[in-house]
């Protein structure tokens, strides 16, 4: 599966955020988009995920523009976790995860064994099977985030796009969600996430997309992107690059 952005233009009302951005998402890898606030990283992810309609250019899924395909078809191939979604009151975990089967269902069809199996597998993969009967609003932030990911997994898509999945979580839960993203990528999926924390990005990503002012400032493996000069250029931060004692990944230490 190949997900690409070609000459993408997007924005909100009078503001143009992306002005002709092109990107090839490496298939089967974990790509992390980083950049300072308001650099357009969420706009890029939202446009890739079909949550935002581009003003020009296209997002191509194996050469076809996703904004011209039927939404159901796209939802069978691209899963999305939007930023901080509102939790509906009164839904249990399994109820919410089962909503992920929507793109495979028609109103005249029954809930099938396949649907049931997909939901069970998604809950197992996201490690929320034990919570199946609990109301989603009673869960902690980290558990909720895993439930949303489980819902996207129930869509059985080849690619998963996550918009700031670790924001608002405490550190242990952040690591939990990052580990889950890594496992999903190893399981064969293409994963794209927007992250704020550069060190987490460097440690978990296969591929980094660093953005500034609506365009891509640098792209590549973490050691190639996280250099002292690039961090200064993109984030306006003077830093030293250290090695992570656990993984050897580059770590950005402010001066």
């Amino acid at each position, binding site marked *: 599966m190949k997900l690409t952005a070609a000459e993408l233009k997007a924005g909100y009302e009078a503001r143009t955020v992306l002005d002709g951005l092109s990107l090839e998402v490496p298939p089967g890898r974990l790509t992390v988009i980083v950049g300072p606030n308001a650099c357009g990283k969420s706009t890029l992810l939202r446009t890739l995920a079909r949550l935002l309609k581009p003003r020009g250019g296209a997002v191509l899924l194996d050469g076809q523009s996703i904004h011209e395909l039927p*939404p159901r078809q796209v939802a069978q191939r691209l899963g*999305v976790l939007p930023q901080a979604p509102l939790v*509906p009151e009164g839904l249990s975990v399994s109820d919410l995860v089962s909503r*992920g089967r929507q793109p495979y269902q028609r109103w*005249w069809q029954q809930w099938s064994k396949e649907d049931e199996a997909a939901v069970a597998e998604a809950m197992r993969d996201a490690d929320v099977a034990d919570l199946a009967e609990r109301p989603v609003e009673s869960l902690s932030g980290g558990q909720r985030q895993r439930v949303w990911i489980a*819902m996207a997994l129930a869509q059985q898509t080849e690619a998963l796009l996550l918009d700031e999945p670790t924001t608002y979580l405490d550190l242990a839960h952040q690591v939990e969600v990052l580990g889950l993203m890594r496992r999903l990528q190893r399981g064969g999926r293409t994963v794209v996430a927007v992250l704020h924390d550069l060190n987490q990005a460097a440690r978990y990503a296969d591929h980094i997309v660093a953005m500034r002012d609506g365009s891509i400032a640098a792209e590549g493996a973490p050691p190639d992107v996280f250099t002292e000069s690039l961090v200064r250029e993109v984030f306006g931060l003077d830093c030293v690059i250290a090695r992570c004692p656990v993984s050897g990944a580059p770590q950005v230490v402010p001066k």
Partner: protein
Amino acid sequence: MRYAVLVLVLCAAVVASVSLGDIAVPPMDVLQSLLFGGGEYDLVVRELRWPRTLLAAVGGAALAIGGALIQSVTRNPLASPDIIGITQGAGLAATIALTTGIVSVAPAATAGGLLAAAAVFAFGGAQTSRRFVLAGVAIAFALRAGIEIVLTSAETLDAQRAQIWLIGSLNGRGFEEAAPIGVVLALTMAPLAWAAWALRTTSLDDDVARGIGVRPVARRYGLAALGVVIAATATAQIGAVDFVALVAPQLAQRLSKRERPPIVASALIGATLVVFADLLGRRLLAPTQLPAGVLTAALGAPYLVYLLLKRRRA
């Protein structure tokens, strides 16, 4: 299981409504007369009470379905047809029809309800719930003022007839009024089956809904339009029977422990409420008849207060 209980309660209310009156008919004779006919009670049961009871049940079910759809779409328990102007639109049109005699009441009222809903959609859109409800409340007040203007400038007798219509009474109504509601419900069977399925995503954020392949705005417009047509049809036939469209879906949601009001349970509870309200209205101060709309308002208002208090605590 729960549905069986709701059906039984509705049946009990229907039998009680047909059985009780100035001439009391034993429940077994009610069933005998309704199912087979040919007993001494046929006139009372089949001609007088059953048509009115059937209208109450069908009308109540339709109001509740309309309410359930509109509440789900707006994610707001207050967004029922009698709060957001549909009932007032039907009321204004009916008042004009009754005081001028230019057009017949029911078609005018249906058109009035639909026009009011169209105005609410035009001003409020289906993008955000708050804007939609506020537009609805504003339009409801404007239409209510319109009704008062027409009433004060009308002949006394015409104004009285309009008043009775506005309160929502089933007195002297029956099959003729039940038929249009029944036809609309029958015609919307397939759309309603779709709605019961489509409602599964209305409690989700738009972005989440888009992610699972739904067009959330289009879906909301479709569901709301269906609810509006059904509610306007019912209101045009039985008048403003207040609070049913608001309370029945809320009760159904609580009983089913879902995140949204279920359609079938809402319909059963709405039917039961109106049948019961009409029975109470007939018997409470007999021989004086209280309109069903007065009873539903008297029962519904305290429930609304309870709902608000409970929300504040939560």
